[in-house]
């Protein structure tokens, strides 16, 4: 009897040495591994599929004359021009405000209550839905100038770009070591001299990538432009008239019955996606590298 028990203990000991986990825990481990990797794979499918489909369906229709023709002639020249103009207006309005607010947050009070209030407002601004920004721009510009325009669209984009620029500026200024500020102050530098000649100059690469990130985001925004800049099939008549943009072109024409127009939508997508992805990949890589350093 006792010998039998002895041999059973041996067996379970051997089993435990070979596989230290009871079957239940082992199964749990393998099952969770499978679920985690399965879900991660699932998460990658849409991205790969989007990139692949846009590329395949868009590339065949891409012709160089599309860049100089208006939508009405099956090109997207006016939409590219419109996007560029509105992003520039957005940049002109948001870059000075954004950088200065970033300087305020990083240099003028890491711990005071006004700064933390401004930081709080900035994070709220990040979360405002872009369509709500459109309603705001409609009230401020379209109702006042009594017409849809590139200026209204640019204003909406500026509100969207602002928090991105503020937060990246603050982050890149904070990476500059305090010793550099102290050294500047010790040599008699005023606050202005220290901030602009030392801190901001050193942080320019970081601030630039922040601006690029904001530009990439603004260039892809559709919602705030639909009822501020509206759309136009032909070249725009000026800053105060309705203006086309690449994202709104896709939205307005995606279920157009004309096969040439539906091809144009895919071609526009590949151009827009290429533009945005290259800008945001480059700027993200730069930011990542700086963080690692």
């Amino acid at each position, binding site marked *: 009897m006792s010998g039998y028990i002895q041999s059973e203990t041996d067996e379970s000991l051997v089993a435990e040495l070979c596989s230290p986990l009871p079957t239940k825990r082992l199964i749990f481990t393998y099952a969770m591994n499978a679920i985690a990797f*399965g879900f991660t794979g699932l998460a*990658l499918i849409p991205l790969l599929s989007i990139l692949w489909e846009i590329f395949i369906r868009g590339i065949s229709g891409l012709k160089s004359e599309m860049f100089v023709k208006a939508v009405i002639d099956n090109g997207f020249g006016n939409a590219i021009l419109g996007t560029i103009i509105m992003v520039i207006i957005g940049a002109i309005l948001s870059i000075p405000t954004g950088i200065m607010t970033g*300087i305020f947050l990083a240099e003028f009070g890491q711990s005071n209550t006004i700064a933390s209030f401004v930081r709080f407002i900035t994070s709220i601004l990040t*979360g*405002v*839905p872009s*369509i709500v920004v459109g309603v705001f721009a409609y009230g401020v510009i379209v109702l006042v100038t009594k017409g849809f325009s590139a200026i209204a669209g640019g204003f909406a984009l500026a509100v969207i770009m602002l928090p991105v620029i503020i937060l990246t500026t603050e982050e890149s200024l904070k990476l500059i070591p305090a010793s550099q500020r102290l050294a500047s102050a010790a040599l008699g530098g005023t606050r202005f001299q220290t901030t602009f000649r030392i801190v901001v100059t050193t942080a320019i690469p970081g601030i630039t990538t922040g601006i690029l990130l904001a530009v990439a985001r603004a260039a892809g925004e559709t919602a705030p432009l639909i009822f501020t800049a509206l759309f136009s099939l032909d070249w725009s008549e000026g800053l105060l008239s309705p203006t086309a943009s690449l*994202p709104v072109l896709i939205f307005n024409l*995606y279920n157009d019955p004309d096969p040439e127009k539906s091809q144009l939508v895919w071609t526009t997508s590949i151009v827009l996606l290429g533009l945005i992805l290259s800008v945001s990949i480059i700027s993200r890589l730069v930011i990542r590298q700086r963080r690692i350093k």
Partner: protein
Amino acid sequence: MENSSDDSNLGDESFNLTGISGANFWFDQGFTRLVYFFAVITVAVLFLMSSVIFSEALPAIKQFGLGFLWGKDWDTGNQIFGALPYIYGTLVSSAIAILFAVPVGMAVALVTSENFLPTSLRTILAFVVELIAAIPSVIIGLWAIFVFIPVLEPLQKWLANTFKWIPLFNTEDPSGTNMLTAGVILAIMILPTMAAISRDVLMAIPKELRSASMALGGTRWETIFRVLLPSGFSGIVSAAMLALGRALGETMAVTMVIGNSAQISASLLDPAYTIPSVLANEFAEAEPGLHIGALSYLGLILFGLTLAVNIGAMLLVKWVGRKNK
């Protein structure tokens, strides 16, 4: 170079070594004022935004009051407006999105923060998932209509045929553009937010906790479920809330796939409508007056909703940060 001019009057000012004077002083003062001025502009943008949208919505607020929130009719001809179907569509589609995005986002966060894979591969993986956030939502919508829905539609038809007795799937011959599709597309779009923030939360957990659990004989997954997830719980909840905030306000992709029909139906396979979608579809052609007012009122509701969710998430992060100190 600038000090050369100061050398001449060094005698007079040698007692004031730390002070700055003259043009430099005014320049510095001006600069400080300017920085404050721009910071005030940033703050003003948010307050101006609230007041402008409120004044745009005023005609509708006066006409319908709070009854707008539970009004079911949206009749532009008779100037009767109610928000309930839109609020319902917004909340339900976002809830579906959160339901899908939280487990998948957590899986991505765990795979990219735990040492399942070599570091270089993990970094690439995290980077690629974050890339989804960079794709314009109108392009995701385009992909959804022409690529994703044709794949999803047979599955939804099967769901409708097999589980007709469940109210959630009780739709005759679903068309592909419906609440469920919108929820899934939203889940794809908020996944990067969920994954990236949860990853940061998990990586911030002290290594000692993990080692202690493993030293006591816990397996990797037991450590994750009993130690890592509980200690990162509030951070993960705030990640989900920020993701929810994004889902509530997402416009283009949802507008393209939700079917745009203002109804309240228990079935997820029926078309629906969300607040951002109705703004995108109707605002440009709306008549000034009550119609614009009602749409702006919807915008105000959406603004309030996202504000509440985002502030909640931020306060949670702050509260946890204070507790951990």
